[in-house]
């Protein structure tokens, strides 16, 4: 348990308003958006500068407290959950955009800046920061970097990793590491930056991020296609890509998702359709025109039931916003929404849908599927009730079977949400024991004492770090 002196020291270094140790404060920093996981930290700090981060880490080190970094807690694999108690280090008060450099096309900001705030600030200067996870209104840049978040525009513009140019971070031993910079090329030594991206807060605390910006597309066109059969939607995606068209967005929602989203947004989505694809093409106006025509042709070939073109930017914006609510809207139906992040080579999409359908029937579950179809990244979501142990077992069996297939097809167990607590077993299945061993060696090089976000990505053979599906505090004092 954390000592009183340590709390006093934290208050002295960070200010009383930036230290929380009341149970009511701690209790609400023990979860993220992953269902069924809830732990209780011993103290929480909200540093407002890199010095504050350093001071908090020093005190935690002295006290032997695990340190768990937290952005906005929208993670979907339990990454910011203090599974071994300790100190939650909240970065959401480090939220200044420090510079938008129009000569080098970069932006530099603190780790707690909200993704959409950065997008808006750069857009105001005529520039474009593409990564746009569904959670962009809430998630922090630090969280995005640590999970290598994707988004609706991933198909054409890539994911967070593709935009990170430099990172400033504090390592567990208190040393500062700056990696990368504004130069577009950099091969000096090991690529620390690339190692840090997607490391889920297990290697260092990111304090500052420099990202690449690009000029925004001149024109876009948003197309909505409805299907009587979800497999036809999968086919459409594969065919569009095979036709060498790269839309910026190609998102899918199945019937269950369409209905939940419509219940919330009420914009007239057709409830009886089996699936919809939200497709956006952008770029030079002539190119957009041509691509849109080709997409339209393919949609007709695969017998889309209806094709609708958004009449203006406002309607397009509404459709994208509706899609972003998919996961939360599915939660209307049941208390627990267990979602996965399977990603397959895009040519296998239709098969994946068929497999999801088959397993849904086999395990008698209600499943809503949506996702970044253009990336082959699907989120089949089981709508269940965590109080029903038997149903939860069926849900887990569903994912077990599904991942067997996904891995056999050369896919991955996580396209964008990370491993965290929730998917450790699946990771071992994907990369094997040898792979996990190497990862542990890397972790050890950065964090020999295992202070930083312990229990994530792989287990250190301690039973308390096994995946926590049961509700109830796992660790406390």
């Amino acid at each position, binding site marked *: 348990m954390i000592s009183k002196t340590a709390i006093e020291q934290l208050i002295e270094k960070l200010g009383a308003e930036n230290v929380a140790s009341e*149970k009511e404060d701690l209790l*609400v*920093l023990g979860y993220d*958006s992953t*269902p069924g996981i809830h732990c209780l930290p011993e103290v929480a700090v909200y540093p407002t500068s890199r010095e504050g981060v350093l001071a908090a880490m020093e005190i935690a080190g002295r006290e032997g407290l695990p340190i768990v970094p937290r952005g906005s807690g929208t993670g979907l694999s339990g990454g910011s959950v203090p599974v071994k108690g300790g100190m939650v280090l909240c970065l959401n008060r480090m939220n200044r955009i420090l510079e938008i450099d129009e000569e080098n096309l970069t932006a530099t900001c603190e780790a707690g800046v909200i993704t959409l705030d950065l997008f808006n600030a750069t857009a105001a200067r005529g520039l474009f920061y593409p990564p746009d996870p569904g959670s962009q209104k809430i998630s922090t840049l630090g969280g995005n970097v640590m999970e290598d978040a994707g988004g609706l525009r991933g198909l054409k513009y890539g994911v967070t990793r593709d935009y990170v140019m430099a990172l400033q971070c504090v390592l567990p031993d208190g040393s500062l590491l700056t990696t990368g910079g504004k130069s577009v090329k950099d091969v000096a030594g090991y690529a620390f930056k690339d190692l840090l991206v997607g490391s889920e807060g297990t290697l260092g605390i990111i304090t500052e991020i420099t990202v690449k910006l690009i000029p925004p597309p001149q024109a876009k066109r948003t197309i909505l296609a409805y299907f009587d059969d979800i497999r036809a939607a999968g086919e459409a995606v594969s065919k569009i890509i095979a036709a060498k068209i790269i839309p910026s967005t190609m998102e899918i929602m199945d019937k269950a998702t369409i209905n939940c989203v419509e219940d919330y947004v009420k914009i007239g989505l057709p409830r009886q359709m089996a699936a919809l694809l939200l497709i956006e093409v952008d770029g030079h106006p002539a190119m957009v025109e041509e691509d849109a025509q080709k997409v339209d042709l393919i949609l007709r070939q695969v017998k889309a039931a209806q094709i609708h073109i958004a009449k203006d930017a406002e309607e397009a914006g509404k459709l994208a916003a509706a899609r972003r609510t998919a996961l*939360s809207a599915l*939660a*209307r139906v049941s208390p627990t929404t267990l979602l996965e992040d399977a990603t397959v080579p895009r040519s296998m999409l239709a098969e994946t849908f068929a497999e999801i359908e088959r397993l849904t029937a086999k395990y008698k579950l209600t499943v809503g599927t949506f996702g970044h179809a253009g990336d082959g990244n699907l989120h089949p979501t089981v709508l269940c009730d965590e109080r029903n142990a038997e149903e939860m077992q069926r849900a887990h069996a569903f994912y077990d079977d599904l991942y067997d297939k996904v891995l056999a097809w050369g896919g991955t167990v996580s396209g964008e949400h990370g491993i965290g607590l929730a998917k450790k077993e699946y990771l071992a299945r994907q990369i094997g024991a040898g792979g996990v061993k190497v990862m542990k060696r890397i972790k050890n090089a950065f964090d020999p004492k295992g202070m930083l976000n312990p229990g994530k990505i792989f287990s250190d053979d301690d039973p308390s770090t096994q995946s926590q599906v049961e509700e109830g505090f796992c660790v406390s004092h």
Partner: protein
Amino acid sequence: MSRTKEKLGNFTQLDAPKYEDVLQCMRCGFCLPTCPTFALTGRERSSPRGRVALARAVAEQKLEFTDAVKQEAFFCLDCRACTTACPSGVRAGEVMEICRSQSHQQVPLGHVGNSFRKFILQRMLPDPELMERSMLPARLYQRLGIQWLVRHSKALKLGPAWMEKAEGMLPELKAPLRPQLPVITEAVGEKRGRIGFFLGCVMTLMYPDVSRQTVRVLAYQGFDVVTPRATKCCGAPHLSEGDRQTARELALFNLDLFLQADVDYIVTDCAGCGAALKEYEELLDGETEHERLASFRAKVRDVSEFLTEVGLRTGGLKPVQKSVTYHEPCHLCHAQSISRQPRDLIQQIPGVELREMEEASWCCGSAATWGLKFSEESRQVLDRKLDNVRKTEAEILVTANPGCQLQLAWGVRERDLPVQVLHIMELLGEATP
């Protein structure tokens, strides 16, 4: 959400949140950027997601109903912005409203505070005549009115700087409207129907001229307007202070009164009353026959909602050559999902130019007695609002709720902004011959 049958965790049996309602939150955080208290503090426990998690922890016996939970219940503005934002259908504001009732059961006030509170909620507000009498000295001597508040400040748990603010906020008080308004005001021109006008307490006491306009506008629009003299407080202050029992008694009374009045619609010009009236069905669930509740609910309309629905008669309206910006009351846009209708009305007034402000649906910081309890926080919320108002350079700031009007008018005076604050019915009244 009214009464649970089984006791839930560390809640008491009477008026506890339902477990289903707190489980519904999947913790996505979509509500975070819309919550004024989270914007003020950056503290998870003062966010909708955090508040629901606290309630859930109490339900799951991971936490007692502590003083801090009570604080969060009252620090919540009950602005319901989180309800609008939540794709999962969670109603964090309402969960907190119910927790306020738990507060009084579980964290009792001292004896003196409690009896004052009881006096105001259970004697004063339910009795329109008593209320008018006690406001009488306030009208004669506005300072005396302040003294009245001073005497009762403990009971209302007001914040340190509330007095100066309350004094500044009070509009020039005129004679209450209730005894003056005819029980029936007849329709002008071709008659379109008969409506019951629900005259709220704050409207009759503080804004008699506004509701006078409302009745005049409704009559001009072709409706016989029935204003039952016996109307009692809608119960909103009781819900907000956590006295659900008195709220139920008032609701039952008003329900009978308006059902007997045999009207086609029940219309109010107070967003707070409208939201409360629409919740009677839930509040009185099990207390009276369902058909009566449903029939009452089917008739209730906010005045903007009503006029847009039946269609505004624009023939004969006089032009108002003014630029107008519109502030959405939380209890209209978030609690009743009425957002488009007031704008439609404003735009139908000849001559008016509507200028949208940024964040029109962000709370103004009034929120019942919240603005007096947390005067510093309230000022910060108000500043954010007034900055957005100022940027529009509109001549008139229109709203549709007396609480907002008090707060905005006060803020505008304090800051010396060149903008006139009006209720939407005053604007429409200006255009009505």
